[in-house]
């Protein structure tokens, strides 16, 4: 009888103590625009293109699961608004002309800006 009274009280106090201990641990909040999360090395952000390395072989265009994402007619261009960041083009490029950066804040107010052209 007495035990059934004391046990819950003990547990309640234990709960309070557990929460209290939390107060002195490291904060988990990251204040986003000022501080950013550390990213993995294999993070797939915006794709960069090195014009000098490219031999215009067209492999990247063939392995890309999307039809009109990569275009190689006279100029090389990637449409990042369609790209799903699967990484096929980067892995299959024979000259390492494509690579992923860690840039992920890609929001723009004009879709045209997401098309990566040869000259930039």
């Amino acid at each position, binding site marked *: 009888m007495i035990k059934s009274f004391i046990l819950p009280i003990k547990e*309640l106090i234990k*709960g309070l103590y557990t*929460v*209290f201990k939390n*107060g002195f641990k*490291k904060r*988990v909040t990251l204040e986003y625009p000022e501080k950013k999360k550390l990213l993995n090395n294999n993070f797939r952000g915006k794709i960069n293109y090195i014009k000098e390395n490219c031999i215009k072989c067209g492999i990247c265009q063939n392995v890309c699961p999307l039809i009109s994402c990569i275009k190689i007619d006279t100029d090389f261009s990637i449409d990042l608004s369609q790209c799903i960041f699967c990484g096929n083009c980067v892995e299959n490029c024979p000259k390492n002309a494509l690579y992923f950066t860690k840039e992920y804040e890609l929001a723009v107010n004009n879709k045209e800006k997401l098309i990566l052209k040869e000259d930039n």
Partner: protein
Amino acid sequence: MSIFYLIYIEFMIRINAPHWLIFALWHLISFIFIAILLVITVIILVLFERKYLAFYTRRKGPNRVGTYGCLQTIADAIKLLFKENIEPKNIDKMIYYTAPLLVFSPIMTVWFLIPFTSGIIPFDSSCSLLLFMAILSIPILATLFAGFSSGNKYSLIGGLRACTQAISSEIPLFLCLISISILSGSMNLDSIVKMQNDSIFQWYIFPNILGFIIFFISALIVMNRTPFDLPEAESELTAGYHSEYSGMKFAMFFLGEYALTFILSAFIATLFLGGYNSPMGFYISDLLNLPIIFQEFLKNIEQFIWLMLKTGILILIIMWIRASYPRLTTEKTLIFSWYILTPLAIFNIFIMAIYKLLRSIL
């Protein structure tokens, strides 16, 4: 009569003010005092609760508006003020608009009854204890009104839950007040405080520790604070009885909730923890050699600080509980207050009566 009142009367008679003006103005002054105090405490309390809960849950809390987020509540209040007045379709207009006022005004009235210092008792009555509980039962009616008139099933369930819960918790609350009345032999809050003034061992928490615990838990139920916040359980009922209110009307409910939390904590401090009395048994201002008016003034400030400290500690505990425990179910709350709190409270009255008898004999 407090020294402030005497100074005020003296001043008003000197400038030949008419009689009715003297009394009306005194009440107006106490009204302004209470209103300013209420707004300031609520603004501080809302911000403090957010920061304090963030402390326990390993977050940072608001820190964008002002230094360390100190202006966050003011920004929120301005946002609420300028919101559009949205009126749901199936409401009962008259009751719908009365409910926020009916929640807020009794809680504000109750603030007048607390003896903040020995000089500042906005409304001194011989049965302020009874008055306190009588007025405090009005907001519950308002929560029922709000739930009933919103034309929303969640609001209705929330309102009904608030009502059942409040009825079941107010009985142990009243029974604890009886035990305090037995101990002090009075129903005047100021004389209850004055009885506890000699030292820390005169506080009523020491003979009446069981009463204190019961009162504290019942007060949590009345305040709708977290282990018992069923009326506004956001996971089941969106926001319970005030889910159809927005803008300033919602702010009234919000303000009322925090004002109630503060005033009930102050009430517990007054009844059980010696109210405005210093726990050391003497006041620092008494030790200084000052003219009597300054001394009295300093003493009042000191008493106010003591009361606020005690209230603050109680609020800290209440918010700590909010950070720790999950919500109970409806029937568990009711069973808890009817089967455990009420019999214990009645038992407590017997103990207190015997204690009082023994003390008068020995």
